[in-house]
């Protein structure tokens, strides 16, 4: 039995401790906003926060989440920053197919938490592990800059 908090809620799962956190989130907890893209930390579609830091849940054994806080896209709006990032995404109208966007938003939020006013180069570096086949990268950059701006305004 492995216990952790997901989106603020205490949860216990009875699974092989090597099971990637991604599949616990999707198959066991039925939180389907976190996506499977590659299974080897190449695309970022599975990005969630573990104690506030962005991780690739497809290569993170659930045992590493034991006793920790997991945040998925479904729980992101519970923080002011998360809300700000989602609002910026809405304002820029970022998604096309949308499949990668949960991961993009989770990576962007983790970036802004560590670095509230990232430069364009810092954005590129932080977002380079999140693939988008529809080509929304420039919209993502605009949304991150907007979120940084709004966050600054709220200070």
């Amino acid at each position, binding site marked *: 039995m492995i216990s952790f908090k997901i989106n603020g809620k205490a949860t216990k799962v009875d*699974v*092989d401790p090597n*099971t*990637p956190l991604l*599949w616990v989130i*999707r*198959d*066991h907890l*039925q*939180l*389907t*906003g*976190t*996506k*499977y*893209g*590659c*299974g*080897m930390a*190449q*695309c970022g*579609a599975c990005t969630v926060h573990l104690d506030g830091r962005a991780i690739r849940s497809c290569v993170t054994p659930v045992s590493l989440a034991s006793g920790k806080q997991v945040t*998925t*896209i*479904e729980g*992101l*709006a519970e923080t002011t920053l998360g809300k700000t990032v*989602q609002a910026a*995404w*809405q304002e820029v*109208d*970022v*998604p*096309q*197919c*949308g*499949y*990668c*966007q*949960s991961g993009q*938003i989770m990576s962007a939020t983790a970036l802004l938490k560590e670095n509230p006013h990232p430069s364009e180069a810092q*954005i*590129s*570096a932080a*977002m*380079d592990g*999140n*693939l*988008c*086949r*529809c*080509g*929304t*990268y*420039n*919209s*993502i*950059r605009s949304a991150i800059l907007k979120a940084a701006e709004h966050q600054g305004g709220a200070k």
Partner: protein
Amino acid sequence: MKTTTAQNPSRRKFLKNSAALMSGLVIGFYLPMKNGRVFAAEEHPKQIYPPNAFIRIAADDSITVIVNKSEMGQGVYTSLPMLIAEELEADWNRIRVESAPVAAVYNHTGFGMQLTGGSSSIPSSWEQLRRVGASARILLIRAAAQQWGVPESECHAASSWVIHTKSGNKSSYGALADAAAKLPLPETVELKSPKDFKLIGKSIKRLDTPEKINGSAQFGLDVYLPGMLTVLIARSPVFGGKVKSFNDTEARKLPGVQGIYQVPTGIAVAATGFWPAKTARDLLEIEWDEGPGAALSTPKMRAEYLELAKKPGLVARNDGDAVQGFKQAHKSISAEYEVPYLAHAAMEPLNVVVDLNTDHCTIWTGTQAQTMDRASAAKTAGLKPEQVEIHTTFLGGGFGRRANPRSDFVIEAVQVAKVIGKPVKIVWTREDDTRGGNYRPMWADHIEAAIAKDGKPLAWKHTIVGQSIIADTPFEAFMVRNGIDATSVEGAATLPYVIPNLQVELHSPKNAVPVQWWRSVGHSHTAFVVETMIDELAHLAGKDPVAYRLGILPAASRYRGVLQLAAKNAGWGKKKLPANHAYGVAVHQSFDSYVAEIAEVSLGNGKIRVHRVVAAVDCGMVINPDGVRQQIEGAIVYGLSAALHGAITLENDRVVQSNFHDYVPLRFSEMPQIEVHIVESSEHPTGIGEPGTPPIAPAVANAVFKLTGKRLRRMPFDQETLA
């Protein structure tokens, strides 16, 4: 356990009724285009479409638009409702969207089946959906006029209200919907003049954005049914291979594994979730019967293709006399080109959920091809098509892969469901998806071209070698003529430049690798070949590449407008670029839209860096300018991924690449700035999903030539040595 939101019964009943009532009114018809592609550029002008199949107005004034095209990122869940809402005079803020079930009333107006592809959603719906909206508006006004006992001519509609102009009496659409639905369809429908458009032509935000940023949008992979098993399939490592024998002793011991079965495509592992299915699959020992084994390898195939490119093929176009033309040449050049197989690599790997019962089959999947998939599923299950229901979820990217003319992933899923007897979700891993074939074909080309003394092209002989995408599919009858697959030569046989002696020939060799349309289909390769060769001719003639193209395009050509618009906005020939940066240009027409792209490129340590792309597009009238911008940006990124990095190669019949580390899409740090400029037009709208892809590879290659003097004639470019 969460269950999927299947349609509620009332909706299902409604659709069943409307489809039964109305399907007789709608006829599928094919309109072969000049280049052999089929879609309705001009739909039936007088057709009256039943509005209730597409619009549902509730008592609370919410309006549901039932969209008969698949949303794969291209924005149809916004742009198609805009067409209806414009004529309906609907309050845009109350519009919501549902995906259509499979029914004849939802057939593509050109293809005669439910299908999303060929950049045709807007052009094929432009008349139809505006007429749907206008018909509903007429009926709502009629219902109100009857209730008030006033002439219809004294009433008008605005923002989901019918208003009696004189008295100011008004009634909401929600209050009128029931009465309107009982009226017979109007006999004639007048459409608005474009000058009166309120929505069309404006950048409207996507209706699907809210659910795509909070994780609630449902993709195929997100469907969970009670008692459903997750199934992974071990498929043959060689195309066409079969299971000879297998040992599943170790795999069966894993907790969560519910069964292991031999199915036509391989060995299916059913488990309580993805992870036990995946780990059990890894433990299988399978001996494959690889068949005769063609020993397919990319270097060998390249050599064979290039050899074939020098031999006479089937003639796709023959103007003048190429042989005579070359005799009179002032200067001539020849070149060979090669492009590899490409996987679509949508972010969401393929997946299908099937719930199969004795007399009914329900399928949830992100498909672009509902009618074909339903027919294939029915045949596989031994049911009638009407007994198969398909729920089209959001597609995590399509790019053509999810419109498989052989219904490969759907047939396999039904085969598995038949064997297992429980609801199943078939999941393809990224590796399965990358190695699963159905690729953009590899192609080799040979071009010989000559210019006259004045520098203008005199003769052009282009030979293309590559597998036919259309052969052996249901489309063969109308897209292959005299052995020539229209998609193999599109963009080459339709070369727009004035060249008096022009010959295009085709070889279509066959092999075991399944091929399929990939964003922009044949154009994805022909634009690269012809637009780099035209650039070579400009150089040979000592002319500027933009001026040269303008000098050899016909006077009324729409290519000219986009070329000039891109050149103007890029500051072509005027703007001083940073040291070691250069511009390259290309222009191409596909799906009846014209796109010019100018790429600003530099080289660092032999690596190509694309800094900026200035694109100009002429796609006729524009529905949603921001949607056009998104599609052109996306198409450039898709084309640039292929130009710089993309290649599927074979060794000993096996696909070498497996995941994003060795089949590499463009990443964030490589993203150029992109500007999209739109030509103002009052022409019928044309395609926008694909036409941005073809020009980017040649634009970049032409810029690299400017920088290095080296011609790139082989994709991907990252395999070339550049100083």
